[in-house]
């Protein structure tokens, strides 16, 4: 064993120069492959119309035109969609947690009749693609007069089988003895839940809140299929509008790119500051 440990640094030193150069080249290529689209998007949103259509494409505009952002803002009704995005996504985080955490608690820590079939109902949405249910939901909501309401858009994202599944797993890992100790000390169920159990599952819950927000913020399909007017549409639809304009007589790529930049900006900024937490969140939901 000790022999192996001694050999290890020597082996590292022996790594040939050619191998290192190849490694560097691959790294730079990968870096470029993932940075260039973002760079080009941001740079293009400052171009003039002529520059945006230039052949060959331009990588650095002569003058930085900020008014593209204002144009995108006005043309695609950004204030309305942006407001909707913020309101609905934040509301979804709250309702999703209020709906999921108690449910996950019951399935993770309690015994009751019909637990198995009820659990199957909870997990059902993981098996059913949205393409199967969007029309029935559309018909149901239009019969109820719920189309184009904030409530309906929030309700759809309130329940998510995978969210409940992951929080339940976290609850199941909570040590029973700790809870018993708290109960022996005379703590009520509510106190036990909020003072003892909840802090233990908090990381998972935060993760799931983040995922709920992302799911709603990035959603496009429900935006398209469950709304008939602008009242509750969110930001991805603004990009659709800008994009559709480019199919017509006046292609304005620079404005579209400005819109795309504005849609991505909150997520990218959040990701720059919290990339460790966000990545961990996805690892958790993928592996467990």
């Amino acid at each position, binding site marked *: 064993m000790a022999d192996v440990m001694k050999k290890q640094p020597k082996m590292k030193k022996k790594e040939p120069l050619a191998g290192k150069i190849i490694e560097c080249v691959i790294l730079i290529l990968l870096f470029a492959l993932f940075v260039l689209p973002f760079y080009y998007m941001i740079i293009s949103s400052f171009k003039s119309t002529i520059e945006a259509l230039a052949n060959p494409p331009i990588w650095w505009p002569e003058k930085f035109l900020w008014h593209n952002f204002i144009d995108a803002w006005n043309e695609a009704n950004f204030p309305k969609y942006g407001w909707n995005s913020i309101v609905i996504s934040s509301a979804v985080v709250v309702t999703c947690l209020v709906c999921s955490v108690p449910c996950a608690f019951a399935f993770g820590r309690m015994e009751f009749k019909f637990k198995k079939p009820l659990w199957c109902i909870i997990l059902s949405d993981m098996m059913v693609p949205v393409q199967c249910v969007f029309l029935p939901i559309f018909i149901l909501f239009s019969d109820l007069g719920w189309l184009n309401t904030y409530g309906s858009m929030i309700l759809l994202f309130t329940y998510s089988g995978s969210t409940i599944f992951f929080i339940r797993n976290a609850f199941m890992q909570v040590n029973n003895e700790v809870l018993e100790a708290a109960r022996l000390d005379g703590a009520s169920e509510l106190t036990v839940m909020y003072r003892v159990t909840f802090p233990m599952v908090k990381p998972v819950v935060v993760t799931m809140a983040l995922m709920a927000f992302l799911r709603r913020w990035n959603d496009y399909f429900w935006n398209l299929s469950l709304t008939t007017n602008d009242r509750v549409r969110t930001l*991805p639809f603004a*990009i659709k509008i800008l994009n559709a304009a480019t199919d017509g007589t006046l292609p304005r790529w620079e404005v579209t790119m400005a819109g795309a930049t504005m849609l991505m900006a909150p997520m990218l900024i959040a990701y720059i500051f919290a990339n460790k937490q966000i990545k961990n969140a996805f690892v958790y939901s993928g592996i467990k």
Partner: protein
Amino acid sequence: MSTPKNTEIRAFRKLELRQHGTAYKILNGALKNPYVLIAPAVIIALFTTIYALGYCIYLSFMKWDPIFGTKEFVGLYNYQYIFKDELFLTSLKNTVVFMLVTVFVGLVFKVLVGVFLNKNKPFHNLVQTIMFSPYIIASVAIATVFKYMMQPSAGVFNQILSALHLPTSLWYMGEDSALMSLAFITIWQGLGYGVLIVISGLRAIPDYVYEAARLDKSSKSKTFFRITMPLLSPTLFYLLVTSSVGAFTTFDIVSMMTNGGPGTATYMLAYYVYMQGIRFMHYGRAMAASVVLLVITSTLSAINFVVAGKKVHYQ
């Protein structure tokens, strides 16, 4: 600070209980009743999945004209119709080709890049972090950016290709290249997530396994194929199934970039269901097609469940 005695804590809890009113007692009682706790989620699930799925299957046997409001039972007619429909068969074929390309080519790259980046060096980590970012961004925005960059005449992609003296392509505007362009974007967007999962799978393999392999003088490639790959297989399988289900339900980038075109080169199942249902109002046909989609995706999920149950240890 001295720790409070048990009796003190008990007295404090009792005091705390008394201070709260009736609302507290009701809440406390409700918390002991599991049916109250699960009610909201179960009710929404019943309506948005169970009822909706039932209605979906029911609609697939009906001929419903929403404009005139006529509804009649037509049995398997819708299924017969879609399986004779050229467009449906094309979109089924496109979806399968798209799935095979994105899943398998994607998986190879995820493993290669994952193994390559698993070194915990600053620049490696930076690349990995940047690589993941597309995954949390709306695919709508990504599709738009690529639509701009993949233009045949004034696009960046062709500029780079011709600068390297490589043949240029029509990308999403060419009949032959459109589907592969969409596959490229899908792989690009999902690569970072796959790499992240592969790396966390690699880190979960204990060091002593490699130590033993080194003591046995196992070669690098042998260690990779005999030790790393088998131990990584549950992770890879998870990626395989989730990405194939994702590929079957691809909608956003089709709707943003090509609208199924040019011709029918990128018409896919999810898009077919949407067009039949919302645009052409053929509810029955749309739902019949979606049932086909359901059969495919749930078969994949069921395989995942059976295999994962054997190999992965869920807690």
